[in-house]
């Protein structure tokens, strides 16, 4: 299946490339990391077609576009490297000194440094993007994973999966200012656009913790109850909040659902059925569409955000995991 998808992708790439060039308005480029496929699938958000499949390092998971959109940073976990993909040429141009087994990363709003969670060493590593040098290392809890950066760039949060904490780190001093206990196996941390809240998903506890970013107190722990799905299969991983803070979308893993949470009441509004083993999600910049990766069904589900409907499923590589979308 993967082979034929790739072949189809290559055939479509030429045609679709022309289409995109002809009509760039509203068309964003979507990058999906295929954990087992060792590749990045490139999609067009307007045509919802695969443009290209780029071979990369082993076990690519967390991915993030640089501020200028010219490079895609890829955590190639089994190569113990963060690879720098030049988007225009489709070539890997450099490796960042990430340390072993990088899984997720984030970037300071100014464009650098890059923050990488090193699960093996219980460290958060800050790397200067241009110089490709480690500028700081912060000791955190056991198995750091999710990395969130506040919109004002003053705070970076890393979640540690075995310690079960969100560690708040001052980006100027690189010291931990607060530690907040959250549910078991916290995997992802996302600040709201106004910087007032931090949303943390806990995969094993099956909850999302919403933390007041100022007081560092838990506002609410959100649980999920999907009819017909066993509680142990509800495993939140990725989370995204709309810019206006009105809605949050939570990927529930083997529950095969994305939960829609009201950003004001913090109540679950709806569950959207997607593919199997949903990992991560990303909005288009206009927030018209949400792309979610389904690790066990080898596809990406596309959610129409205003109508809260799943509008398409696009086959990608084997075991899609991370997703990032261009700003233009």
């Amino acid at each position, binding site marked *: 299946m993967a082979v034929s998808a790739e072949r189809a992708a290559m055939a479509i790439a030429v045609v679709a490339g022309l289409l995109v060039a002809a009509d760039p308005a509203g068309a964003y480029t979507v990058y999906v990391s295929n954990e087992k496929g060792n590749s990045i699938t490139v999609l067009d958000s307007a045509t919802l077609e695969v443009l290209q499949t780029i071979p990369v390092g082993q076990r690519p998971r967390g991915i993030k576009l640089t501020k200028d959109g010219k490079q895609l940073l890829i955590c190639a976990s089994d190569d113990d490297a963060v690879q720098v993909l030049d988007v225009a040429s489709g070539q890997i141009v450099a490796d960042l000194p990430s340390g*072993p*087994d990088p899984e997720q990363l984030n970037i300071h709003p100014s464009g650098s440094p890059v923050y990488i969670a090193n*699960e*093996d060493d*219980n460290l958060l590593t800050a790397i200067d993007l241009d110089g490709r040098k480690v500028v700081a290392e912060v*000791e955190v*809890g*056991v*198995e750091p994973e999710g990395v969130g950066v506040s919109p004002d760039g003053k705070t970076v949060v890393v979640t*540690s*999966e*075995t*310690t*079960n*904490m969100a*560690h708040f780190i001052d980006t100027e001093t690189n010291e*931990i200012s607060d*530690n907040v*206990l959250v549910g*078991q*196996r916290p995997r992802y941390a996302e600040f709201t656009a106004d910087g007032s809240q931090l949303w943390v998903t806990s*995969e*094993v*506890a099956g909850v999302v913790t919403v933390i007041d970013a100022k007081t560092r107190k838990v506002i609410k722990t959100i649980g999920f109850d999907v009819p017909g799905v*066993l*509680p*142990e299969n509800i*495993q939140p991983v990725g989370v995204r909040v709309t810019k206006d803070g009105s809605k949050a979308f939570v990927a529930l893993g083997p529950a095969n659902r994305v939960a829609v949470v009201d950003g004001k009441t913090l109540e679950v509004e709806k569950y959207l059925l997607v593919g199997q083993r949903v990992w991560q999600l990303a909005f288009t910049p206009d927030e018209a569409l949400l792309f979610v990766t389904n690790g066990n069904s080898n596809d990406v589900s596309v959610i129409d955000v205003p109508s809260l409907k799943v509008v398409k499923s696009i086959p990608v590589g084997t075991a899609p995991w991370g997703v990032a979308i261009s700003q233009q």
Partner: protein
Amino acid sequence: MQSQPCRQLPKPRRRGRTIRTLSQLVAATLSLLLVVLGPPPSLAEIGEQDETAPPSPSSGDIATIPIGYLKQEVKKLIPLSRLDVEPEDLGIAGAEIALKDNNTTGKFTKQRFSFEVERVPIGGDPIPALVKLIDSGHHFILVDAPAEILLRLSDAAKGKDVLLFNVRAMDENLRQEDCRANVLHTAPDRAMLADALAQYLVWKRWPRWLVAKGVFPEDKDYLEALRRAAKRFGGTIVEEREYKETPGARRSDTGQLLVQRQMPAFTQGAPSYDVLVVADEHEVFGPYLPYRTWDPRPVAGTAGLKALSWHPAHEQWGATQMQNRFQRFAKRFMLPLDYQAWVAVRTLGESTSRVGSGDFAKVNAFIRSDEFGLAAFKGQKVTFRRWDGQLRQPIIIADAELPVSVSPQEGFLHQHTEVDTLGIDQPESKCKFQ
């Protein structure tokens, strides 16, 4: 069947760990002199030379939570495969790595965990070791001992603020008629293991089992668990065939030739069956069966495909991190007993961080409450069954090289949680805590 699923990495000698040589183990076997001379230095004392050990608390507001590990040495047969020799630090290394995890977290919660190992030589009395741990302030003690020793220790600790974790004994009676209020079990019992295996065999549509059983009491216990599992999940035992030979020398100059003739003969003339299920915990003959059966059939049970709490090649649900961390630390693969000890020590770390205290009553109550849950690389939180203190956990089905599956299997339904289809469920529990 729990202890040795796989080969070992060669284990280099570690700095400062002078008690871990084979010759000293032999010395312990031959004589009780150690008891007279006093116990060997504990790992906690030795650990102080380790630069990775957490700094000792300098200010008064750091709470220290001491954890004990009582290991009763027992006489064992040499395993048939030299890949399966039990490491000297089996279990203890698992507890130590969990201690490091707890102490990393403890930096943020102002909690420090200390660790003390008491090794009781073969035939030695474990009670003084228990008393020593209790008297030195240990409320939480991992017990790595046979069932009858565990019961003696439990009775001796009765009425005290002591919680014991059974990390080794698989005996069902410890969870049934002999269950104890002051014991939690991180070791799966034989019923859980047999159920986990049976579910996989039935899912695979291999429901007809020829059972090859040994003569030891443990083999009879495992056979009972297999019979129960067959009844629950739709398996059929077509015949039970006893291997009557008692273990002789584990090696002989005549080598494989004899075995190659014996095993086909032993399995000849069986009614039609799908899989040969072995109940031979002492490895008298079980490991000889794969590839030597009269009919070409897979082997499962205590040999071949096994049900295990952990496997050194298990990598799902973030387990890769755990395996890497353990191998770097212990210089060998992580085995089921290491995992069972890890779970016990992490249970304490998780609970003390949640209640914000090392207070015995608070921690003990929290572990048994609905709020407790531990992320333990099994794809769902692990918890303790209220009715018998057994850890509720998915079980790995694996051969020597790789995991094949994880039970519970799809389609075996339960009214509350599927993982309670493994082992003794509440309605069948005979446990009345005392």
